[in-house]
């Protein structure tokens, strides 16, 4: 009677080990699969990020359709719109970050933009469907995907992650209760978004052709005015594959 029991124990142990192993290795395996879908070429990834940033800085992609749609296409109102939201990190601040921190900051900022866009669409556009919003959201998601891939690429290159710029989320939260004010704030948000993407493009333009170079873009960290200078101790939060990016 002991023998069968022993055999059962022997067979159960590997299965258990396998199950535990699979359980533990699952995130790593998923990450490996996700990485397989990223481009392994730093140059290509950088080019894609630049191209996306260039594409997204164009106000005709989002701001202009929004202004026309919201009836803000007057010089005065355009003047309001051009007072872009100051909630976005400045180019200098971005340039002062390490690559990984920059990537994390961009990713986090765009995450906030996504949320604001969702609120804006819900609040201002209501039933109106602006295709550019959909495209903008997909582009932001694409940038975050590429940032993830670039981060993975840079991490594997042993670049030390740096804390992203804090406080980027608070100003992006919708605050206006008045509809017109909400429209104007939305307009200013989009303006800031385009300008931010222009800054991102500029930063990416300064990136070198090699992923191994670990440098800071600029020593003038204090020049960043709109953002609190903070150095969080935690690592850069990696984007979670398959749509599980933190929001």
């Amino acid at each position, binding site marked *: 009677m002991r023998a069968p029991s022993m055999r059962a124990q022997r067979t159960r142990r590997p299965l258990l080990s396998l199950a535990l192993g699979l359980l533990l290795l699952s995130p790593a395996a998923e990450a490996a699969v*996700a*990485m*397989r879908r*990223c*481009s392994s070429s730093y140059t290509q990834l950088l080019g*894609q990020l630049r191209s*996306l940033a260039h*594409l997204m800085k164009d106000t005709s992609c989002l701001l202009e359709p929004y202004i026309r749609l919201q009836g803000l296409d007057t010089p005065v109102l355009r003047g309001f719109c051009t007072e872009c939201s100051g909630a976005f990190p400045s180019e200098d601040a971005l340039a002062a970050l390490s690559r990984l921190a920059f990537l994390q900051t961009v990713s986090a900022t765009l995450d906030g933009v996504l949320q604001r866009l969702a609120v804006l669409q819900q609040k201002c556009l209501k039933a109106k469907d602006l295709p550019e919003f*959909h495209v903008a959201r997909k582009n932001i998601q*694409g940038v975050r995907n590429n940032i993830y891939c670039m981060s993975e690429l840079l991490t594997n290159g042993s670049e030390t992650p740096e804390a992203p710029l804090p406080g980027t989320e608070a100003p992006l939260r919708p605050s206006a209760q008045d509809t017109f004010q909400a429209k104007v704030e939305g307009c200013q948000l989009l303006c800031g978004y385009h300008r931010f993407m222009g800054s991102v493009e500029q930063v990416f333009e300064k990136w070198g052709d090699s992923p191994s170079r670990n440098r800071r873009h600029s020593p003038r960290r204090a020049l960043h005015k709109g953002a609190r200078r903070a150095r969080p101790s935690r690592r850069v939060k990696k984007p979670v594959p398959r749509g599980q990016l933190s929001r």
Partner: protein
Amino acid sequence: MMLQIWLVQALVVFLTTQCIGELVDTCGVISPESPVIQHGSNFTAFCVLNEKCMSIYEVNASHIIWKANRVLIPKEQYTIINTTTSSVTFTNTSLTNVQLICNILAFGQIEMNIYGVRMRTGFPPEKPKNLTCIVNEGKRMMCQWDPGRETHLETNFTVKSEWATEKFEDCKAKPETPTSCIVEYSPVYFVNIEVWVEAQNALGKVASDHINFDPVDKVKPNPPRNLSVSNSEELSSILKLTWINPSIMNVMRLKYDIHYKTKDASTWSQIPPEDTATTRTSFTVQDLKPFTEYVFRIRCMKGDGKGFWSDWSEDARGVTYEARPSKAPSFWYKIPSHTQGSRSVQLIWKTLPPSEANGKILDYEVTLTRWKSRSQNYTVNDTNLTVNLTNDRYIATLAARNLVGKSDASVLTIPACDFQATHPITDLKAYPKDNMLWVEWTPPGKAVRKYILEWCVLSDKSPCIPDWQQESGIVRRTYLRGELLGSKCYLITVTPVYSDGPGSPESTKAYLKQAPPSKGPTVRTKKVGKNEAVLQWDQLPVDVQNGFIRNYTIFYRTIIGNETAVNVDSSHTEYTLTSLNSDTLYMVRMTAYTDEGGKDGPEFTFTTPKFAQGEIEAIVVPVCLAFLLTTLLGVLFCFNKRDLIKKHIWPNVPDPSKSHIAQWSPHTPPRHNFNSKDQIYSDGNFTDVSVVEIEANDKKPFPEDLKSLDLFKKEKISTEGHSSGIGGSSCMSSSRPSISSGDENESAQNTSSTVQYSTVVHSGYRHQVPSVQVFSRSESTQPLLDSEERPEDLQLVDNVDSGDGILPQQQYFKQNCHQPKTSPDISHFERSKQVSSSNEEDFLRLKQQQISDPISQSCGAEQMKMFQGVSTTDVFGSETEAPAERLETAGMEAAVDEGMPKSYLPQTVRQGGYVPQ
């Protein structure tokens, strides 16, 4: 009450439900329910019986039978698992769709359906191959793949796509398009995406290889739009293209592909790709021809070459600006009329082709210069100018002018009237090639300034209207640049033009494209003979020839005979068919052939005559001539031998009037000097004829005989001059009809009633001296000429003279009476002897018997005559010695005249004379 009703209803519902449940219950099931089997694999189905049914129908698993598509499955494939379960196994299944039914034999014999399933067979999906995706600008991404082999099962294809951080919605291919799918989301450029296809059916699931790409590298842009073309007044060789790029230009750099061609060209030229490798909205095309319309088109794609070319834009057209005409016009002249001292000259020229005109020709400038005279200038809008010139030599120049400037001048020398053209070209040939009519020649030894080629359509219906073209002096071969038609005969003339005037022209004929003649030649006969026929036809008119007639073929046949074909050279218009059958209907038709085929003419029929021409004459004339000759010869012969003939067929009948008896007769006057024959006789040859004795029993009165004798004499006198005398009517006929046919019966009666004997004692016949006196008996019914026609009779008599006695008489009978050869001769002979010794009545009976005997009738008279002669001689031989002597004398006299017959006894001698019968 209500409760009762409710209870009843509830009971009914319960019972009904139970009944239906019983009915719905099956006696067994097949497992698996919906089997899908891989093609070629083994499959086993189980039929499990219900216990209840087994007891009701008294069956178990051994009573299960299987059917596939209503066909009983062999029991070798069955397996009895237990009392309730039977299985059937299919090996190497190949059927695609089978209805499998489990049956039982209820009570061991009644077949009942228990359960049925549909069994499907197919293949698992193959791994999709060649997965590609394309992003049409402004549209969603579409992926295509090769699904592999047919599975025969419902197979779903799903396109899956993921980012590293996000998964997109699956794209399920529609059944009608199982090889492609358009995703539902808009592609995000510059973000790599991984795409693969999963194929799944009941037999399996398989995924294609994953492809990872940036959608921007799969873009097919929209084509550039609003393409426009503009020219430049400064440069007549450029055109500037402008266009609006597709909006994808904001996403990626573009490169372009620009094609252009002239308006009428069929092939496109390409702008070098390196010149259009960057994003732009305009491009200037250079090195174009002036005043030429060009067509352009453009397309674009991602600048790095990844992705797909856009579709072509719409064509855009533009015309380059004008330039000075690049060549001088072709220039020639004609002299329509010429009078003493002046001539009308028509100067003609060709409009410049657009490629040489380089613009719109406004007018032409013509100058005419005579030797040592001022030039005459003309500005002409047309392409010809008629001027009156003297007979001197002129120099004409021509220049075309457009908005920009003038062309070079064409110079033409119009020679003086007395100019003699010389130096023609040689070896002029014209032939079609590549749908053009080429002309080739060998240049003359003299330097040629240019050549003028003229051509026109040869036709019987319309005049030759020439077209012309000019070639430079170095050209040896060219093609006619007019609108030439096929099946038309062109007369082509090439004239070399020298500095001092035109040379001698040379001409040839040619077809651009030949065709079979549109009409066949009409054949006819020129002459038809017995065995040959001369066919004739006319040359086909040039309008229906459609090509050079190379040869003719004549087909001829009889109605039942095979057709015979004869090839005839095209230069002929006649042909003689030989070896024809006479008197036969022939059908003949003729086909004329060009290089491209032939055409039959109408069928013509003719009949050969039975005889050749002159053949009838050749037969008839000689025959007639031969007949005439024969006749003539016969006449001549007869003429020469007339005496002989007369002797044989027409003996000289002694004229009784000239006989001695007549002379002797007291009623007859001497007539020796009256008749010409008498004169012959009176020559002394016929000196003495004596009729010795005539005995008759004629009962007629004597005076009547004398009367008839007188009448006869008178008749004879009236026929004086005829050598034939009484018998002159025919040599073969009796003399009696010439006397009187009315007396015939009477004479016959007289003869039949009277036996008349006459003894003619003559001196021999034709110098023959009879040795025996011949006594002849004359019968009125038998003409004695029968015996006269036979000279043998006379010979026999001669033979008698030679002393052969009675034997010659027997021979005579043999010669003339062939049928009764033996006994009849004897009998006749004996009978004749009897007759000779008997009385006259016996003789008459004998005569009647001979008449009744048809065989011996003809000779009966002969026999009789001879018999009479012999018997008379025998009878009267001794008693007539004295007369016999006189007869000898008379015979000698008679023998002088050869033409006289030996005897003629148409007379009846009576007492005192004779009476002609």
